[in-house]
């Protein structure tokens, strides 16, 4: 269990003149899985990008262990805080083992050599993500699900205690979505890695996260345990849609059923 703290204070950020986040305060729980949910263009990804200093906020701060991430030297930060962007590019012709090895970048300087520790970190990441058999395959030949596992392996090889993921399940079919989320859960349990991810699917988020953070038009709508957050009122606020919440028979977590115009009655 790690105890790095990540604290977001009055965060205002956007792209160019367009302001997306309008003042967000948030404390992330160490060693837990947090899912950020919300409608399209509500600022979920922007929040994640600002937390990982891909985006410089116009106001407010993000504090990692009390130090502002935007002032921390980048490599030092990258040893504690990892990020898997939404659509990283697989360089042509690179093999899986080599790509995963790229995760060791923050541990190297200009002249440092590859070490035994690096090999061990890569090996452990490959074991954990079951990508050992893919080691010598070119990344551009892999299927979507395999590729996502490889990217996660790369983030693991980075060896960070906090891992941020931007929609790690997009473009994957449902079985691979579950596989990726299972993998992240394993990681959280085995290594105590703090996981923060943006998820599209409310039900998967409720099932896998210890904590949901709901964002609505650039502001924090509500946050807390899924059982506290996921209810008819929240869904109405986030998506402007009626729904009914039932208990997921498998996990006991809340499960959202959307109500369309044709299914209002009993």
């Amino acid at each position, binding site marked *: 269990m790690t105890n790095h703290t990540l604290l977001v204070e009055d965060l205002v950020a956007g*792209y*160019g003149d367009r302001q997306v986040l309008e003042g967000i305060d948030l*404390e992330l729980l160490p060693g*837990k899985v947090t899912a950020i949910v919300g409608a399209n263009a509500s600022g979920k990804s922007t929040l994640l990008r600002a937390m*990982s*200093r*891909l985006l410089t906020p116009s106001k407010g701060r993000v504090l990692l262990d009390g130090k502002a991430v935007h002032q921390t030297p*980048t*490599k030092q*930060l*990258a040893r504690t805080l990892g*990020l*898997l*962007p*939404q*659509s*990283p*590019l*697989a*360089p*042509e*012709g*690179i*093999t899986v*083992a080599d790509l995963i*090895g*790229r995760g060791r*970048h*923050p541990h190297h300087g*200009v002249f440092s050599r590859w070490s*035994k520790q690096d*090999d*061990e*970190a*890569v*090996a*452990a*990441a490959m*074991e954990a993500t079951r990508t*050992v058999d893919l*080691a010598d395959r070119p990344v*551009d030949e892999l299927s979507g699900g395999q590729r996502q596992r490889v990217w996660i392996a790369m*983030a693991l090889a*980075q060896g960070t205690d906090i891992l941020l993921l931007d929609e790690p399940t997009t473009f994957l079919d449902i079985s691979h979505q579950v596989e990726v989320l*299972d993998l992240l*859960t394993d*990681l959280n*349990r*085995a*290594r*105590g890695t703090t996981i923060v991810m943006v998820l599209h699917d409310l039900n998967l988020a409720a*099932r*896998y996260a*210890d*904590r949901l953070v709901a964002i609505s038009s650039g502001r924090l709508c509500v*946050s*807390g*345990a899924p059982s506290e957050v996921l209810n008819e009122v929240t869904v109405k606020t986030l998506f402007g849609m009626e729904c009914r919440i039932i208990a997921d028979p*498998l*996990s006991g977590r809340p499960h959202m059923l959307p109500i369309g115009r044709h299914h209002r009655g009993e």
Partner: protein
Amino acid sequence: MTAGSSPSTAGSSFTAADGSASPTATLARPLAEDLSASRRRRVSRRAALIALLVVLLCLVFALTLMLGQSFVPPGDVWRVLLGDDVPGVSFTVGRLRLPRAVLSVLAGCSFGFGGAAYQTLLRNPLASPDIIGISYGASAAAVVGIVFFSLGGAAVSTVAIGVSLGVALLIYLLSYRGGASGTRLILVGIGVAALLESVIAYSLSEAGEWNMQEAMRWLAGSVNGASWGRIMPVLYALPVFGAVLLSRSRDLEALRMGDDAAAALGVRVAPTRVTVLIAATGLVAFATAAAGPISFVAFLAGPLAARIVGRNGSLLLPAALVGALLVLVADYCGQFLLPSRYPVGVITGALGAPYLIYLIVRSNRGGGTW
């Protein structure tokens, strides 16, 4: 806002990590050794291939000193290189062939280096400086200088270097909009290239007969009449800018995965991009000033080098070697193997064009990444 309690989720069947928190889990050890062995194999294979390229370059360099209108035995070449005065040979080798070969190597290295840096940074083999307008800055400046101001020699070089750095900066600034994007940089480069092309066309239309020939020769790219005076600036520029690029080669490799992924790995994206652009532009500008825009060397060297050493490591050094080889060989062909003499740029242009087209087809099929 309260912290969520974590009710246990059912059915996690994970075996591999075994609850061990350390990355140096005992289970991973044999795999780590395998990985390390295969990495060592790859690294030594790459080193061997690069060494091979170096040997080949030395060999071709020596051959171009020996062969030509007349054959000079290796012994005589060696003595000239050591500074001895060998009657009948010193002039041919020392004054004609040696500067020409040295300029070929230096210009080829610079183009290959700079081209591969651009291609890697912009993640597109087509985004080499000779296609997206960086070299056009040097060309336009040189032609305007030759035609309207009757400049020659060092003055043309100085203007060409200054202007092409300025043009690169302009392209970068124009493509900057809340963060620079590689795609936009390529497109802006194409637009600026078109503008500069019309400047060149206008200058040529205004040129007198003599200036015209001078300008055309310059535009074709040629190592004809190489002198030590022309060589010196490149000789100084190559190690300086080359070292800057090599020191950034790891960050450059990380950038191939996209700006976000690289930033997540601790690469400072914007400073890296600016440093690489300045160094690569500097290399191309100095080489262009000395030898003209030898077509396609900057563009061809990277992909050819990738063919030879593979794409798992940085391409900068192999591309520089391949660039030097290309210019040496093409210049020899242009001088002696064809019915009439052509400047080296025409040869690399004609050789490069079909390969360029092949590459567009291939890289577009692969989704444009490289």
